[in-house]
């Protein structure tokens, strides 16, 4: 199930209105939040993708059902450019080997939309915003590997978990943006 922060219904609208409305709604959203845009104009896909890139937002992907496209766009997060500070890391290419350990668990802290359009098989989805609440269900004895898109949200997640008493937490760097291994897409749609 893909959870989003807001939904924009642009069905029946012709170009340029889907982009004009998306842009307006995006202005009122917080960094890192995900907007779902519903459209029926086939031209919206290319335009929304190009606009997102130009505005610095992340076009996550889309799913088409019966002529209605559901687009997922994540608002630009200026924090993503910051240096990571959490010291314990594992590189992408060592991850699969590390996960062989019977106590190892991979946690994906990206938004559910990002997770749905492509994640490492077996990864557990806990968006960063839900981590405080859902952390208590995790076993403190396990070896936890935390991944996001570029290593920043996972850096923050690692720090939160260590502060909460978890002992073995590793940040996966650089993360999904450069992941070239197996990917599972649970949407049936197109990933950007």
């Amino acid at each position, binding site marked *: 199930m893909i959870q989003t922060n807001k939904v924009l219904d642009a069905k029946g609208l*012709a*170009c*340029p*209105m889907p*982009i*004009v409305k998306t*842009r307006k709604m995006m202005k009122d959203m917080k960094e890192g939040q995900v907007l779902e845009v519903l459209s029926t104009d*086939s*031209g919206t896909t*290319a*335009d929304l993708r*190009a*606009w997102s890139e*130009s505005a610095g937002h992340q076009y996550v992907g889309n799913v088409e059902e019966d002529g209605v496209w559901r687009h997922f766009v994540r608002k630009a997060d200026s924090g993503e450019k910051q240096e990571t500070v959490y010291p314990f890391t594992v590189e992408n290419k060592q991850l699969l080997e590390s996960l062989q350990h019977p106590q190892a668990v991979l946690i994906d802290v990206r938004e559910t939309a990002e997770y749905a359009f492509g994640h490492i098989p077996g990864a557990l989805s806990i968006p960063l915003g839900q981590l405080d609440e859902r952390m208590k269900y995790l076993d403190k004895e396990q070896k936890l590997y935390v991944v996001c898109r570029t290593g920043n949200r996972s850096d923050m997640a690692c720090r939160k978990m260590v502060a909460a008493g978890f002992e073995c937490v590793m940040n996966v760097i650089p993360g999904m943006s450069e992941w070239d291994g197996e990917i599972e897409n649970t949407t049936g749609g197109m990933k950007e």
Partner: protein
Amino acid sequence: MRTVQVGEVAKKVISKEPLFILDVRNQDAFEDWKIEGEQVRHVNVPYFELLDGTEEIADQLPKDQEILVVCAKEGSSIMVAEILEDEGFTVSYLSGGMRAWSEHLEPVKVADLKSGGELYQFVRIGKGCLSYMVTSGGEAAIIDATRMTDIFTDFADQKGVKITHILDTHLHADHISGGRKIAQATGATYWLPPKDAEEVTFDYAPLEGDTSIKIGETKIDIQALYSPGHTIGSTSFIVDDSYLMTGDILFIDSIGRPDLAGLADDWVSDLRESLYIRYQELSEDLTVLPAHFMIIEELNEDGSVSEKLGVLYKRNHSLNIEDEEQFRELVTGDLPPQPNAYQEIRQTNMGKIAPDEDTQREMEIGPNRCAVR
């Protein structure tokens, strides 16, 4: 703000008049395909970059010339044109956008035939497709009709002729044929080369080498000449002993590509035989009328696309490759991208799928890309 129809733009392109275009589609769409002409200047800035105003591009826009704003359909171009008008520019927008540009056909008279009829070329200037109508003694034949069938039927009505024959030189992969639709509406005979039509789901008249078709009382001959290579069935026509309709085998500055039905390697030798042996045996005085043009420079002064066969044998590089291996390399090696949705277009032309009109438009978007140079 002025509304400009595609016909006006077509006439400006043909007469090489200056035209300044602000294309507000996204960059990929613009790079793939745009309005081209000798005197056409472009600036491409996507409309979504201009929502807060056009200050940033103001110095790229002319103050003393009308700016034609163009987008995919027209909605975004109207919005941008309004912004520019408020800022004091002289602006217009293209009615129907690139979609209308893709569908526009400009009829050009190619010849008065010696046996009394007329020959027209329909230049689909936005996509580079060429269709033909031969009229004589109250009858007409259409060759390689596009899906905008009203243009042909209205033209025939204006001329007071009855469409009796419709021919396709081959099974098209870059555009949807209007042949079957016109045949159904008029009762005309629809001719297709049988080797291209093995999988079609409708009835047609088999067009094979040496078939002759008469148009009108003046008996204009359309003589079929089997010339495989672009497709296995590709057939050329000689009209009135003077005009060679080459389909997608031979163009003015390029030749047909053999790969769009998936059999490039098998068809290379057919293509070579058609171009280097069969056409060589024909009179150099024949005027070549192809089914496409690739670049706007191939248009003659009057907007038509034609050239003497003898001239092409001197000037068209692809007709002058002595070495067979080198020829094979040219037509199978570094081929341009395939036309948009060409598989679906072939299926549609076989009658296997029947997409609605909007989908057909989408399928045909972009340049035709049927040639190799």
